[in-house]
């Protein structure tokens, strides 16, 4: 089973491809598109047409899910700019991986006091990751940007594991 990539979320929303989107504007855009395309307001007796309406509405919902999340938005942007770039840059720096492993261990053994400290540290790391990503994208270096996305994934995962700890 191979996942078939969804259509370019930026194209579905009819907006320029950029990392930094105004969240309010994006939400307004989503609600407007939904009002225009939702099957509730586009009922038709013709079945084929009905599927087309559903498909369009599904694309809008799915694109919204991608665009509202900064990291998913970044992935979509990179894929749209350079197809397959995320797959091509999966190999990360061994130094980084060693650090990531250490971090995962810290998370696994964190007590309540340490938990808050680690959370702050990870959030700061993610903010830094995004800063670097922004620079790479601005410079048009999509390979470097893809590596940032993969690295950030380790930080996100650690943060998630931390949150799951009771």
């Amino acid at each position, binding site marked *: *089973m*191979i*996942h*078939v990539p*969804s259509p370019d979320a930026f194209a579905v929303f009819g907006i320029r491809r950029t990392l930094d989107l105004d969240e309010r504007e994006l939400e307004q855009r989503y*609600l407007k598109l*939904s*009002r225009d395309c*939702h*099957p*509730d*307001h*586009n*009922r*038709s007796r013709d079945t084929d047409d009905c*599927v087309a309406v*559903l*498909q369009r*509405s*599904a*694309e809008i*919902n*799915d694109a*919204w*899910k991608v665009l509202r999340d900064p990291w998913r938005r970044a992935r979509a942007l990179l894929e749209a700019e350079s197809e397959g770039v995320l797959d091509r840059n999966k190999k990360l720096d061994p130094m980084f991986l060693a650090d990531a492993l250490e971090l995962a261990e810290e998370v696994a053994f964190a007590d309540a006091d340490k938990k808050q400290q680690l959370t702050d540290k990870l959030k700061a790391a993610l903010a830094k990751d995004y800063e670097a990503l922004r620079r790479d994208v601005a410079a048009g270096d999509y390979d470097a940007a893809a590596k940032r996305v993969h690295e950030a994934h380790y930080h996100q995962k650690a943060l998630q594991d931390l949150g799951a700890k009771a």
Partner: protein
Amino acid sequence: MTDAAKQQDGDGGRLVIGIDLGTTNSLAAIRAGKDPHILRDKDADPLTPSMVCFHPDGRTLVGEAARQQRLVHPDRTVFSVKRLIGRSASESEKDMRELPYPIVAGDRDLPRIRVGEHEHSPEAISAMVLRELKATAEKALGQPVHEAVVTVPAWFDDAQRQATKDAAQLAGLECLRILNEPTAAALAYGLGGKNDGTVLVYDLGGGTFDVSILRIQDGVFRVLATAGDTHLGGDDFDQLLVQRILQTLPTRAGAEDPFVLQAVRSAAEGLKKRLSDEREATLELDLGERGDVALKVTRAEFEGAIAPLVQRTLDCVKSAVKDAELTLADIDDVVLVGGSTRIPMVRARLEALTGKAPHTDVDPDLAVALGAAIQADVLAGNDRSLLLLDVIPLSLGIETLGGTVQKLILRNSTIPTSVSEEFSTGVDDQTAVDLTIYQGERELAQDCRRLGHFKLRGIPPLPAGLPRIKVTFLVDADGVLRVTAREQRTGVEASIQIVPTFGLTRDEVRRMMLDSIENAQQDYVAREAIEARSKAEAMVRGTNKALQMAELPPDQTFAVHKAVKALQKLLDQGADTAALKAASDDLTKVTATIADDVISSAVTKALKEEQQP
């Protein structure tokens, strides 16, 4: 689509009703103008019990009439089928034991309700309740109804939703939308923009529990997350009291006796209701030769018994808030829906958790039906200002090698939503591929619900691995899955044969529809009767009005009076369609022959006004 085309499609002015098909009670509503209202018989209780009694004399009684028979014919009075619909007999094992009427495992392990010689599917029973609601609505509206929005618990899975749609179809209703109950309640609560904000809907009904978190903003009702339990509700609270009462019986035989079981169930329900108002309640139950029950239960005892169940609902609330990526402090308002939210402990515990006094302006019994009527109005094309964005409650996935489930669509995704995957073949010249769809959150297929089996056929014979079959899984606005497949190299559309694990196959629905042609005939007769009656009533009113307005010679006045009186008398007697039609025709003749056409034009005018509310 152009605006003009959209307007054509909008097709305004259709009559679509909203139906709350509950475990215990059902009701229908309509929105005409700004606010929705409940459709009911004059002065009758707005709630129709979701009960069907197959009386030994051959009559099928539905609603209140059936409820009155439940102690007389406990083994022939069917209720709470919402607990069975879209499920297998093995899954319903606990319900089969607790419900006083006999349920057996039929074909494909589907539960069948056995009454005398006959067996009924849960869908067929629900269809009878829906038919009754349809008739009530038609009587109240004075015109036939063909389309409806039907509500289901948000936590209902694909099979339960599909089964509910089938029930509507069997009842002669086109189900324009399956709507989630808490979402419907939110519509009733948030209509008119008076309650914009983030709202938590806590819906504890007779058999099911749902919690949904919505953001309401400028007419857009967006569900952020939902959680629940399709087997947690007032019935389960009753059941705890039933166990308590059965323990006081001298013999264990009572638990097997449908009469005892039903009498005890009704008594338990009454006891529960009284404990919402009183600190303690006593029960004295005379079961004739089967013994007597005398029991005192305090509210504290009852609360102690239901506490674990109430805690389960609170756990769902917490998980929904988390899934919505919010904290409890972000909730602006808490809305209560469902009869079981009348229990003081439920309110107190929810208030303690959320820190907010629940909102009580919306009647917890009526909110869902009123909301369904609002959505019905939107689908009829009458209101473009409202928009509902709902979510799928449980993840959908596909079985992969090793019995694990690969998630395709995650829970709480806004619907419609779709995902495409590409599949290939394992052996040369393979022309069919099997896919098994599961719904649930667990990793292993055996822990999820197997929804059904899709067989892709018509794949062109090619060496193994060469065909590229793109399969699109689309969840529509009802939360129901649709699957399409296409071979990418040849563009051949693969045909899909669906074998649902639960509920009825398309063939079974078709056959049941054919069986009900006889019923359809009855439907037609009923509709004709309603139409004849409302026309006659309008004529009487119109003629009386015209008589007051027009100056007529005494002999003509007398003739008209006589004809009107004759028609009125037939109406009062509840005469049949033919008699009403004949008398209406007589009245038309009399008014038509009058030289002065003032009166007939006045009648025509009055009639027209009547028909255009």
